[in-house]
């Protein structure tokens, strides 16, 4: 039982990390436009994130260094500061988008005023982070997020064509028409990017240090990285399948968050819809918490300032002020009425552009024989890591042109 509960770091990282607001809507839109055709991007993203999550957990366990300590040592001060600034700005934007989405989900659940619910949601999340030890934060969101499995149940219930899904694990030539081809590219890059959002690895490696992982936890690191990510991927696949089965035949392009509940309500009914909304609340809330906390983690790690969620807030003032200020600013931003889905679209694409600056230092640190000793990355892992880094680089180059050419993914 203890081992199962320990998996919650992986589950929270995966469900809050890549099954957040952006992924929920983005993946359903991809299914609605291209059926199962983009399943291969989920497979690719899953392998990539498993490799890199395992690496940063291993580096944290052996060297006791989290991602932003590594970023500074591998990229130097100047490029490191740019990476820190970019990552924190992205975290702020993503946090604001997630808080806006919390307002929508709570409004759909209760019917109360959406703006009031954004404030209530932010206050509740802030209180949870303030009051709970790190382990309880991850357990709360990790276990609560399991409700997202209802999307997989709904997809299973709708009898998808398993052969077609398996066939779509191999990339095929884009669909006809130049705009459709560009859209296909945009959604491929977007799904891949949403699965690799930087704050996942920032949070995971910080969590490994919060939990005082050492050499003995290396096998747990592998299990947590694989199982948490696999669960997140299963839910992501289910979202794609539901988009393909429910929205594609009717020509529906789902660009409202509440629309994503309909494919669960249709086959499974009211209780399942409630579970889906509560599961979304957990995933989105988890993403808001992770992004806010990561601003504190990143800043403290980069400047070698003391940080530890398990210490009283007054003993780690920079960390505390950073995450509280991020949550407060994000709340104000969300209250301006900005559309959370548009905001998260931008943060996914901009995140893709910043991604090589996070993943390159992790790859280098994990392969460093001097510091990692016998736990340095094996040759095959290193080759695979490089292959994915090249893919990340290509996607980073394509992200903004595709966003502009497709008018942010409009069909």
């Amino acid at each position, binding site marked *: 039982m203890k081992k199962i509960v320990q998996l919650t770091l992986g589950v929270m990282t995966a469900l809050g990390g890549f099954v957040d607001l952006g992924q929920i809507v983005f993946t359903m839109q991809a299914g609605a436009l291209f059926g199962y055709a983009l399943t291969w991007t989920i497979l690719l993203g899953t392998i990539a994130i498993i490799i890199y999550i395992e690496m940063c957990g291993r580096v944290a366990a052996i060297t006791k260094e989290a991602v932003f300590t590594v970023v500074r040592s591998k990229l130097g001060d100047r490029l490191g500061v740019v990476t820190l600034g970019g990552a924190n700005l992205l975290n702020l934007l993503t946090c604001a988008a997630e808080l806006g989405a919390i307002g929508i989900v709570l*409004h*759909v*659940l*209760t*019917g109360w005023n959406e703006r009031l619910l954004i404030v209530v949601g932010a206050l509740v999340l802030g209180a949870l982070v303030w009051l709970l030890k790190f382990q309880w934060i991850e357990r709360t969101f990790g276990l609560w997020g399991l409700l997202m499995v209802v999307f997989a149940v709904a997809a299973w219930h709708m009898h998808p064509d398993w052969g077609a899904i398996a066939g779509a694990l191999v990339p095929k030539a884009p669909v006809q028409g130049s705009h459709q081809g560009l859209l296909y590219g945009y959604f491929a890059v977007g799904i891949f990017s949403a699965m690799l959002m930087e704050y996942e690895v920032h949070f995971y490696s910080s969590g490994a240090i919060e939990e005082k992982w050492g050499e003995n936890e290396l096998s747990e690191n592998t299990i947590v990285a694989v199982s948490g990510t696999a669960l997140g991927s299963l839910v992501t696949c289910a979202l794609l399948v539901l988009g393909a089965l*429910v929205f594609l035949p*009717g*020509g*529906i*392009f*789902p*660009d*409202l968050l*509440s*629309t994503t*509940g*309909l494919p669960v*309500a*249709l086959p*499974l*009914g*009211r209780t399942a*819809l*409630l579970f889906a*909304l509560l599961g979304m609340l957990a995933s989105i809330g988890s993403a808001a918490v992770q992004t806010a906390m990561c601003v504190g983690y990143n800043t403290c790690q980069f400047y070698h300032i003391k940080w530890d969620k398990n210490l009283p807030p007054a003993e780690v003032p920079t960390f505390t002020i950073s995450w509280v200020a991020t949550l407060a600013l994000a709340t104000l931003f969300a209250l301006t009425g900005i559309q959370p889905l548009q905001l998260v679209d931008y943060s996914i694409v901009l995140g893709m552009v910043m991604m090589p600056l996070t993943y390159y230092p992790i790859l280098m640190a994990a392969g460093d024989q001097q510091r990692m000793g016998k736990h340095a990355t094996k040759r095959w892992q290193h080759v695979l890591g490089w292959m994915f880094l090249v893919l990340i680089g290509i996607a980073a180059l394509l992200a903004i042109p595709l966003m502009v050419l497709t*008018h942010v993914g*409009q*069909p």
Partner: protein
Amino acid sequence: MNRAVLLAAAFVFALACAGSSTLNHEQLTSERKRLRSLDAEALLFDQVAAMRHASRSFERAHAAYLHHAAREIVEKLAKARPGPGAEADFQQVSADATRLEARFVALLLRFQ
């Protein structure tokens, strides 16, 4: 000095253009697709509601979001002008948008 004047002129021009835009055939096709998508989504939503597979608060909130989405398109079209040769298309899309918004008002009232 010259650069400052140019920047100021560009800013004024951008402000002047912000309120209205010209929609060409491609953009109108995109708006038409959005309208069709909303129309189809309303049918799906009706189906879910008829099966009593959603709570009252979900029905009320979702109907309001659908109406808001349709109204945004109507408002966008009201502020826009048709591009050269796209007048008939523009009229058609505007009429479709207005009809859909009216339908969504009825939907909204049904779930109040």
